[in-house]
């Protein structure tokens, strides 16, 4: 598809995401995990651990990190980067919150952004 996609798409209400938890958004670009940290900040990452592709949405959220349920890699929610001694990065998805609604950069939903 060559259409140029711009803008932001409203995908959920902030309340839909449990605090220190995650919800999954299915999209043509693959599953996207929306996270809500203890302090209320919302993040979005492609739902794949850079290590074994594990679903990060199913992990334990602590601070601004999530621990992958498969092999305990700790991933930074903001950058998608593996923490500690592990190396690797999950692409993050631009996300913002407005009036209690979660918006995701539409371009991220059509093809995996670099």
């Amino acid at each position, binding site marked *: 598809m060559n*259409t*140029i*996609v*711009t*803008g*932001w*798409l409203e*995908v*959920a209400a902030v*309340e*839909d*995401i*449990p*605090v*220190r*938890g995650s*919800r*999954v*958004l*299915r*999209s*043509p670009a693959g*599953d996207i995990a*929306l996270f809500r*940290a*203890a*302090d*209320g*900040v919302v993040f979005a990452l492609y739902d794949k651990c850079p290590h*074994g592709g*594990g*679903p990060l949405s*199913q*992990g*334990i*959220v*602590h*601070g*601004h*990190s999530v*621990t992958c*349920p*498969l092999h*305990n890699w*700790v991933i*930074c929610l*903001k*950058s998608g*980067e593996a923490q500690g001694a592990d190396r690797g990065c999950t692409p993050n998805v631009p996300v913002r919150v*407005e009036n209690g609604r979660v918006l995701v950069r*539409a371009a991220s*939903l*059509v093809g995996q952004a670099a």
Partner: protein
Amino acid sequence: MATRSLVVVGNGMAPGRALERLFEAAPDAFKVTIFNAEPRVNYDRIMLSPVLAGEKGFEDIVIHDDAWYAERGVTLHKGRKVVAIDRAAKTVTAEDGTTAAYDELIIATGSQPFMLPVPGQTLPGVVAYRDLDDVEAMLAAARKGGKAVVIGGGLLGLEAAAGLKAQGMDVVVLHLMPHLMERQLDQAAGYLLERAIAARGITVHCKANTHELLGVDRVTGVRLDDGTIYEADIVVMAVGVRPNADLARKAGLDVNRGVLVDDRMRTSDPSIFALGECVEHRGAVYGLVAPLYEMAKVVAAQLTGDASAAYRGSVTATKLKVTGCDLYSAGDFADGPGREEIVLRDPAAGVYKRLVLKDDVIIGAVLYGDTADGPWFFDMIRQKTDVSAMRQTLIFGQSYQGGASLDPMAAVAALPDEAEICGCNGVCKGTISSIITAKGLTGLEEVRAHTKASASCGSCTGLVEQVIRLALGDAYNPAAVQPMCGCTELGHDDVRRLIRAKSLKSIPAVMQELGWKTSCGCAKCRPALNYYLVCDWPGEYEDDNQSRFVNERVHANIQKDGTFSVVPRMWGGLTSAKELRAIADVVDKFAIPTVKVTGGQRIDLLGVQKQDLPAVWADLNAAGMISGAAYAKGLRTVKTCVGSDWCRFGTQDSTGLGVKLEKFMWGSWTPAKLKMGVSGCPRNCAEATCKDIGVICVDSGYEIHFGGAAGLDIKGTEVLGHARSEAEAIEIIAALTQLYREEGRYLERIYKWAKRVGAPHIRAAVVDDREKRRSLFERFVVSQKTAQVDPWAERVAGKDAHEFKPLESIRFIQAAE
């Protein structure tokens, strides 16, 4: 005489400051006209809380009185709201038709409180907290006494609650998030604050989702989503503010969240400035006065011809103005890449401090309990001071620079003398310290000999050592304990003992009281703490789902492709045509790819999609099956052989005992998984001698085994003891399980726990000492009362529905904008 005219819309704190500056710099440059929707002069809005609390009167908080305006020739239109700006004609018009022409215009319309769009929000008795009228409405209600509900547990809500309480009302604060002031505070500091607020008699209800406001002619109460009802004579909504940008929007100015301004504070129309909370500058909207005063300075400078004056954004600091609750926060204190945090907790003093650093510069600070260093930190944030040289001592504050460091044993030091340190032998802190002094003891072995503290299971060793250290000082240097994780210095046993000694009943309480070094723990300590609290406070502690691993959170086992497996319970390995038919139907209906018989004598359905789980469970439930807990750090299976019912060698009804044990013990959480087996004779077809707990039936009764392993390690069981009846066997097994629940470290299987504490210790407690066995058994029974709820049925009925439902799918996307 002034030649040019300046019109100001809104008479809040921001334009008040701008006018002061302007008149100082150029008293005669402008003829000023102000329109204010509020029917009064400019006053100090942030001091409304002391007015509400009765500490001040309105006259005390007036900034500019009528004389001030008169002296400066200012026309102040009180109670006149501007409804239109004609940019071509350069005039403004108020609701009542008053107009004024301008050369320069300042829009300073402030913010509007956000009102929750719930039924009943317009009832009389529902107020916001923004201006003097709101305060007067609250004071009028308070004079009649009665009940107040404040919705919103942020700065404003808490100030309103404290004020209403001071006026004698019964006050409830409803807060949507799990802890107060979540934007400024992490859980632990939120817990401290909640405790302080509760201590003044205010009820705090977190995770409260307001459903509707009740009442016909006037508000009478609030109903939450969960059905809870709070009666109310007045409801204060303090759930946030929105920039008041309507007027600017109607006039065709560029508006986003707020009225957009450049660094010169000019809007998209060069003769119109905007100023205050209604403004959006470089993407930021402010809700505190300090940045607004900086903006005001720039507006005044621009008006007097200083074209280079520029506003470049602000770092903000805020303080909660509730007497007795010291809270200060400044800058940006969210986590983020490249950011590090330094956390200091002094549990005894109720102090919590958190600094966020990036590249050796402090970018944020939260202080609770002791805010004296707030301005010092704030100054370093603004100056971008390089703090690398004082990093080690930074958090202790300004006066500590070059000074002493904190005592790492604060948690133990804070325990009262009567706090129990050794649970096995009932020894308290005071006994240990006084014997050390009286007998001149110098080490752990001596203390064990004299007091028996830590002489049994040894799980309190770390604590006893700290008590010795407190008594003897640095002269005593105990062997290091392995900390639970990077978030604490304390080992598992110390944490457990302190949870009980200090009656800690929530994860934030543990983290605060035991001085956790991180704000919300990690994936290692959170599940462990959750288990300890579940185990120690049955029926009281509210399980924290978000601190459980995915399998326990969704009650199924995650597979490598992200699908799940489902294992229904088959009591003692027995099943029936009805169950098998239901399983077969479920497999067909949900196209489950793999069906496998497990080693624990049950059937595993592999490859189930997460969103299908509740429907799969519903069908299994309908056939009478419940969760097999194949994912749980808890009771898994009880494997049996056919026993005396069928087998020619069987000595007892091993299947029957297995079923009884499983029906009695299902649902219990344990430090690690717990698998059992019951064999009907020593031929041991149920392989009971490599289980966590096993029973070998013999002619004279039941031989009870424990501590087997057949995984990473292979180990045969040890014999624990002999029971003559089924009832006695069940009592011993339950007592053993309870002892393991209470002493085992999280993720420690029975055989590892037994190796650590020794089989004699276990045998003494659950076989020899009848009284101890009985009380362990009773504690197990108490905990089972609330544990035996089928998690599948709960979720079929709708619990945690969000877990299983993906958000809406995005199928294709059209170019937006």
